[in-house]
């Protein structure tokens, strides 16, 4: 069965302020979507809301994964159902090693919430998978001994997010500005990583402010978000138009 995420007429407020004002979007496993928009248009709000951040209030609308509403589910349950968010600003947890964090997450997503408790994979099995993913993403093995995001460069943080994506194998992944703050080499490595993970098994929504990353990753669909709504959708040519004409062009032509 192909997984699919449906976002229907989503209205979201934060601290009393209306941010998303009726947003619709469908993402299927295997598809790559680019979600573009100027700063402050509500892209991260959408990402956090999808993942179930408790501070974002859903005023109206629905979010469904495979036809089932996610609204009453906490973030961990959403993750175990196959949703993933690569954070724009990954959180530092000093004292928690990347490897211990990944092990806990890896075991947790294998408890898929369908009742029966599966035996967690052995440490050796986990290590084997982890080493394979580290290799895939051209990351050093010593990386996993560091504390989660502590002292990571911008590039390391984003790569760590992609490493988590690789380990947890979700069906739908939202990548929030995974390209921002990267120099061109780091961007290439991160984009390569995403391309390696993309495929039939994974639906991706790349949230980005710039067009740069779309030179490396070919989206099937491009959406432009302004002021809490998707104002235009199209194929990859839309990204090129945006690059030439800027967001002003969209705002004028809405």
């Amino acid at each position, binding site marked *: 069965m192909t997984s699919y995420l449906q976002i229907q007429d989503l209205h979201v407020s934060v601290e009393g302020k209306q941010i998303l004002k009726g947003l619709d979007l469908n993402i299927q496993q295997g598809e790559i979507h680019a979600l573009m928009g100027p700063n402050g248009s509500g892209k991260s709000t959408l990402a956090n809301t999808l993942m179930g951040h408790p501070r974002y209030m859903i005023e109206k609308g629905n979010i469904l994964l495979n036809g089932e509403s996610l609204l009453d589910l906490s973030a961990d349950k959403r993750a175990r159902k196959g949703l993933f968010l690569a954070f724009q600003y990954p959180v530092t947890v000093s004292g928690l090693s990347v490897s211990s964090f990944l092990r*806990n997450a890896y075991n947790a997503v294998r408890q898929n919430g369908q009742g029966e408790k599966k035996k967690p994979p052995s440490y050796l099995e986990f290590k084997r998978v982890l080493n394979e993913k580290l290799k895939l993403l051209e990351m050093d093995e010593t990386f996993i001994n560091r504390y989660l995001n502590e002292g990571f460069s911008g590039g390391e943080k984003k790569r760590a997010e992609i490493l988590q994506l690789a380990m*947890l194998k979700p069906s739908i992944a939202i990548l929030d500005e995974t390209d921002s703050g990267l120099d061109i080499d780091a961007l290439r490595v991160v984009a390569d990583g995403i391309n390696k993970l993309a495929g039939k098994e994974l639906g991706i929504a790349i949230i980005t402010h710039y067009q740069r990353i779309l030179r490396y990753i070919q989206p099937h669909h491009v959406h432009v978000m302004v002021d809490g709504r998707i104002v235009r959708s199209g194929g990859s040519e839309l990204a090129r138009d945006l690059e030439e004409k800027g967001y002003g062009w969209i705002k004028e032509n809405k």
Partner: protein
Amino acid sequence: MPVSIATAREISRLCDEPSWLLESRVQASDLFDKLPIEKSSLYTRQTDLRGINLLDFDPLGIVSERSFKAESESTTTASGNCITILAGKVTEQHLSQQLVNNGVFFGDLYSSLAQQPNLIKPVLVDKAIAPDDDKFAAYNQAFYNSALVLHVPKGLVVNDPFRIRYFMDDSEKAVVSRIFVVAEPESQMTLLLEEYSKSSTPASNSLYSNSVELHVGEGARIWFQELQNTDERTIVLTNRKCRCRRDSHVSWTIGYMGGAYTKSRIDSDLLGEGSTSEEMEVVFGTREQKFDLNSNVTHVAPHTKSEIISRGVLRDTARTIFKGMLRIGKDARGADSFLAEHAMLLNPQARADSIPALEIATNEVKASHSASVAQIEEEQIFYLMSRGIPENEAEKLIILAFLEPAVRRIPVEEVKTALVDLVEKKWTSNTNSLPEENTRMK
């Protein structure tokens, strides 16, 4: 019958003590009556012993029920070098033949006095922990009903740890214990001290008072590791002091898990040039537990170095007070002293206070302290949950991460593991119970 000077006399009589020991008890009992609950004006406001009357606990009963000395050393089934004390009574005692041959003594005070009076009597007369240090030291020295000595001769490096385990039972008894450790020059040893409660049936409170003196000879090293895991009806009062001679080193690790009310004091006296001390302190308080923790480091000699790393996590309505005092004396040039006290609160009703203080009487020293009290961060929890980790597990990982700066410095691997285990178990059960055999330190 509440304890009084007559109790001290009676314990002394039952233990067949020489008169100079009785005199010490009498003097201490007198001080106990006179001393206020808190001597230092710095802390008076924070010390809260309401509802606890030390005089209600009986230190005499367990003495009259038994002979003071180990019942019989042949009852031992233990391996390794260990002494187990169950409700004040030595039930296991073992020291490897090799260490016996090397001149190590590990046993009760009275045997030690009989076997090597010239060694241990000066230590007792010297009173590193003085009865007027505070009211609790006075209590301990007036009414102790158990006393142990560990002596490691010059130059001997003992790799296997020495273990002392206390199991309290829940009655209105007082287990009042003293431990004297003498590390002759150039010797090295690890001492693991564990405290548990034997029964978990709800009953009245019990009292556990302990004092530990570490006499650290030139160039000697002691790793003192303690996990305090009694149940939540035990009142825990401990005074510990190390006296460090030239180039010696003491490493304290204390894990505070149990106890209704814990009042703990550690004094590190760096008397000899180049001596060093480090202290790793981990607290995990839940429900109504209270921890009153005081660490004092006194740099007397030049080029002495000390570090205190204290981390506390408080849940429910648990409370902790960290009182850290760094004193650098006038001759301690080149001293280097560091104190960090950090707490994390999991509930709005939990509370942590930090009172760091510095007294510096000379120039050319390094001394710094840092302290903080923080809530658990919502964004960290969300981040971990977004990876499938349930909220409760996410919180656990975050508190373990918070404790890590202290935990990773614990020098003995099995203590590190045992401590993390205790935190995890307590996280899940929210209470201190007697651990299964396999979760205790081996």
